[in-house]
């Protein structure tokens, strides 16, 4: 059963994405000769003799080694594309602390990625060296070693320029891989407007070239520095293993004067640009093709299509990319296509059940509810920040061993005086948590930020527990835990707890450890909203469908779910509002750089907030006073009234 489902999903993935990937690879392969021609043209530049330069370049284009290089490069591009396909993600993984980032870099998967890219980079550099010709072409060159004037023997020497080229290629490949990881370039950002693929490519091309030029410049600079210090190692190694001599007449490159060679610098830079442009083009095509909309049928016309129709896909658990594409399609159909909306509102033929609408709305609502719960859990964690656990220990421990615990508990004590007792009602608890967070300064001299972060060193376990728990169930759970522990206060337990606190305290004072462990608040917020694109589409799709149902829904299928939808949206709205009031949460998106690197995942939460509000307004504007007849709780009714009066 499991295997069958997995097989079906793989088939679906292949069906939806297969041809797209093939087309992306084909296009990047087709653009290779163009890039190569440009490279040959630029590498042989002779500004003083333009005609000669042009004729030479065009002659070069037809030579066998250029054609061989193009073939080799197509293999490289194919490998790069395979890596793109293997490593893409629709939900970016955001390292929350520096240690996590380092962990990502030395992760075996990433190491393979880097090594493969370094090798590919070397291959590209070899091609570039061969096509550049001149002194760069061969690794071994004939030279005459003349110890004394009379016995000049022709011998093979190491061509250091060629070696420099190859190493720089490997370095750039590695840099590409590293930046690919750090900049989350495997993240597939969906475009804000639909455009034809050609237009998208044309729009990104100038950016791509500019980005490659700049990136290549930095890489070459860094490589020069590295070669200056460590260049002798590979040189010696190559010359000993391949039994090549080092031409003493030539100037060695790992010296300051050797590196100040403008022509060498230009050619290496050009080689870097060539490498990055071809690779980025492959990446760009993959991105454009993978994020293109896919048309999922709402109602299957044939029985074998049932697996591919929209409600079915939304309700099954497909690969994330398919789910994203399905939600995107839902958003588009709800906005632009009356015919397909009609299919959503239609009743099943025998039986007359609104299966399509039920499936779609259920999935959207469950997505939104999930997000609500996740946000609540995160807020609880931020408000309590290990306090749930601490209160327990606190109750028992503090009378016995004040010592170390008291020192860091100053802010918590103040909070507790607000709360009264840990057994207070969850609403009050929650409120108090927010109250004290909005004014985080409790007279303690140390920054509250550090204080709050301190215990975070390893509270991840309890954090995980909270993640799963529901809002209502969470306080119950913690109360239950308190109760069970109150019954059997084990001495070992308290001792362990005590030690743990002491170690935590000790470690949190060490600067270096904090440097690696400290969570970047912005990053952890980004991580919470990393898959918010799904929720944005669900919101837009749902609200457009509901708004359209006012006139288009003949059977009233939407009416039955309207209270649930309003409830979900209003609850989410409340929680999102509360989230943006937390400290450390900037209320404005960071400036987007407008470069090739897509940072849109950093701003998803703002998009979510805006589209949530718009979705609510879309429904209230269309339904107007009729919403008073919908059954929602009084609190939500009040909120709806504010939306109806445009006061939100």
């Amino acid at each position, binding site marked *: 059963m499991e295997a069958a489902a997995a097989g079906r999903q793989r088939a679906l993935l292949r069906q939806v994405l297969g041809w797209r990937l093939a087309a992306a690879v084909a296009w990047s392969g087709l653009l290779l000769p163009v890039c190569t021609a440009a490279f040959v043209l630029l590498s042989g530049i002779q500004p003083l003799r333009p005609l000669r330069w042009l004729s030479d370049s065009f002659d070069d284009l037809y030579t066998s080694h250029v054609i061989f290089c193009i073939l080799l490069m197509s293999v490289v591009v194919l490998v790069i594309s395979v890596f793109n396909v293997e490593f893409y993600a629709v939900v970016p993984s955001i390292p929350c602390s520096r240690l996590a980032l380092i962990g990502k870099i030395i992760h075996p998967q990433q190491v393979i990625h880097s090594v493969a890219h370094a090798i590919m980079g070397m291959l590209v550099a070899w091609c570039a060296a061969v096509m550049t010709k001149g002194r760069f072409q061969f690794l071994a060159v004939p030279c005459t070693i003349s110890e004394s004037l009379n016995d000049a023997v022709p011998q093979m020497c190491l061509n250091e320029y060629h070696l420099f080229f190859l190493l720089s290629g490997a370095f750039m490949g590695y840099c590409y891989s590293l930046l690919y990881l750090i900049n989350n370039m495997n993240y597939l950002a969906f475009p804000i407007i639909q455009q*034809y693929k050609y237009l998208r490519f*044309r*729009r990104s091309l100038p950016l791509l070239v500019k980005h490659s030029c700049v990136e290549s410049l930095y890489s070459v600079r860094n490589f020069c520095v590295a070669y200056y210090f460590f260049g002798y190692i590979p040189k010696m190694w190559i010359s000993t293993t391949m039994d090549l001599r080092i031409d003493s007449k030539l100037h060695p490159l790992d010296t300051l004067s050797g590196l100040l060679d403008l022509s060498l610098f230009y050619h290496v830079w050009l080689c870097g640009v060539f490498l990055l442009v071809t690779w980025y083009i492959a990446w760009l095509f993959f991105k454009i093709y993978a994020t293109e909309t896919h048309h999922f049928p709402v109602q299957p016309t044939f029985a074998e299509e049932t697996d591919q129709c929209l409600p079915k896909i939304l309700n099954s658990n497909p690969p994330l990319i398919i789910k994203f594409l399905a939600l995107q399609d839902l958003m588009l159909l709800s906005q632009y296509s*009356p015919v397909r909306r009609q299919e959503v509102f239609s009743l099943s033929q025998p039986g007359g059940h609104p299966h399509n609408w039920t499936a779609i709305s259920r999935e959207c609502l469950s997505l939104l509810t999930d997000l609500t719960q996740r946000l609540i859990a995160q807020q609880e964690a931020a408000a309590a920040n290990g306090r749930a656990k601490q209160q327990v220990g606190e109750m028992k421990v503090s009378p016995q061993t004040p010592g170390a615990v008291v020192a860091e508990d100053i802010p918590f004590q103040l909070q507790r005086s607000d709360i009264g007792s840990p057994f207070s009602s969850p609403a009050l608890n929650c409120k108090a948590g927010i109250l004290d967070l909005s004014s985080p300064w409790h007279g303690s001299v140390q920054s509250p930020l550090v204080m709050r972060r301190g215990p975070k060193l390893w509270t991840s376990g309890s954090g995980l527990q909270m993640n799963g728990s529901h809002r209502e169930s969470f306080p119950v759970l913690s109360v239950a835990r308190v109760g069970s522990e109150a019954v059997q206060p084990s001495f070992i337990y308290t001792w362990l707890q005590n030690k743990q606190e002491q170690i935590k305290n000790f470690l949190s004072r060490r600067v270096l450890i904090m440097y690696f462990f400290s969570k970047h608040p912005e990053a952890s917020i980004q991580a919470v909203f990393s898959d918010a694109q799904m929720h944005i589409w669900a919101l*837009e799709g749902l609200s457009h469908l509901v708004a359209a149902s006012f006139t288009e829904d003949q059977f009233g299928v939407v009416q039955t779910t309207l209270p649930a939808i309003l409830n979900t949206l209003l609850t989410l709205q409340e929680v999102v509002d509360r989230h943006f009031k937390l400290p450390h949460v900037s209320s404005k998106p960071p400036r987007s750089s*407008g470069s090739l690197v897509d940072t849109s995942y950093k*701003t998803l939460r703002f998009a979510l907030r805006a589209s949530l509000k*718009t979705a609510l*307004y*879309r429904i209230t504007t269309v339904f107007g006073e009729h919403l008073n007849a919908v059954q929602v709780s009084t609190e939500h009714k009040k909120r709806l009234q504010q939306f109806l009066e445009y006061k939100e």
Partner: protein
Amino acid sequence: MLGPPPPPPPPPPPTQRWARDHPPPSLPPQSVFGTPRRPSEGRYDPLPLFPQNRAWTAPPPPIHPPKVLCGTPSPPHSPPPPPSKQNLPPLPALTLPEDGLKGPGRPESGAQPFLHHREALWKRVLCAWRDGGLRGLLKEIVSAEEEGLQWAKTALSCVVTACRWLSSLHGSLLPHLSVRCKALRGPFCAGGRNGAGRAIRAFAWHPHTSKFAVALLDDSVRVYNSSSATIPSLKHRLQRNVAAVAWKPLCASILAVACQSCVLVWHLDPTSLSTRPSSGCAQVLSYPGHSPVTSLAWAPSGKLLLSASPVDTAMLVWDVSTENCVQLQWFGGGGVTFLAWSPDGSKVLAATPSAVFKVWEAQMWTCEKWPTIKGRCQTGCWSPDGSRLLFTVLGESVIYSLSFSEYRGDMQGQVGGSKTASIVADLSETTFETPYGEERVGGAVQSMAWDPTGERLAVIIRGQNPRTAGTQTVVAVFRTRNSPVFELLPCGFLRGEQSAEPQLIAFHPCFQKGALLTVCWSTGTISHIPFFFLSTHVPYGSPGRSPAVVTASSSVREQPLFSEL
């Protein structure tokens, strides 16, 4: 030729008028068709069109508006007309005279009024570089009076000359780039020809509530709300040369302001009582090379914002919440001078400074190009269902209509416009005999507004030749119907007080009892003119309609109403 109604003698700010003495004109649709049309004739019987118009003209002629409206600015907005009879929402009709406002605050060098003092050369050069970039730096050095720099000055003056020559060459190749900012401000702002000397730069109604934003000469934006006395005044360091304001649809209070160098998006709290929202409430959307921004358009779904500049060939599509933007580039024709998003959200009109305009389809963002014969497209407006575009061309006094096939999402990437545009109204200059003397009305259309029900069209007609006496700028109001066939019938004229010219017009987006036209006059007065009517969105063939109408109108498609060219 303009035919029908005798222009009512200058109806002074009509808010006062109708509120004071008579019920506002209600226009039953059948009365229009009392006389059969004779399209062959150049001129029509002007009389029986609007019985209620006579009611307008009944009170003694030119009443100059009372002091409350355009006198002293002491009450920032006059008490609205007593809403007892019509139970209208109280709308602030206000006057913002120009002399009350300081001119645009330009950063002037503080040294000017004081003693002449020359700073060291390097200081001046640094200043020049900061203010005018490289070009300013070169100019400063060339004009320096110090000795000892002779050779440098000669060399640099050669460079400056070469630069000038090159830029003139560049300008002749790409004409839109040579249009300088000052020249742009006048013609391409919504307000029309004389950019200088008008207190109100831009005006926008909130799409859902009785609230509007006014951009003033001193680059502040004020927000007036019918239900609250607080008037927030928005000021920002970057808010210079405001050319357009636009409210975000499906939102309580987000206002986009087109400025010299950027688009500012103000997030106002509708419940706040503050009159000076801090500049922290404003999002700055800027893009290199995209300035000055002169036109804005929000998608009716509230998701995207379009901004355009006459100098930049690319139009930007903003996702405001994340500040991401996508460039919509096209080549040829220069920048964009006018933007209008159709109310159904499917299409966007973008006019260029050259004799071509484009209609974008807003799903896949492809466009159709429409060359005009004479000049650039001056203004345009969409019918509520987005199936018809009315536009005017600079230098012609006619209104064109362009119909589009009904929008369905399945035809991706097609705009679906008809082959040619047809002329629906000729507004060339005409003379009317009125009881108060001869009136001359007609000329080029400066701007147009179509009310949200699609039943009234307001047009600012500017006299072709401002020097000839008698021709003046008026607002002509037409009655329109879009389905089953397009009809456009004259309804009346609006004229301000003696020296007041209408600058901006806009319809209230959600006026329940008909249509509410807001006119911003050149004196700084803002007045509201309601039109009360029952929307003809009634079942076809209901008793309210005479059968004669149906036959008469269905016989001809897109009749030119007044005359045929």
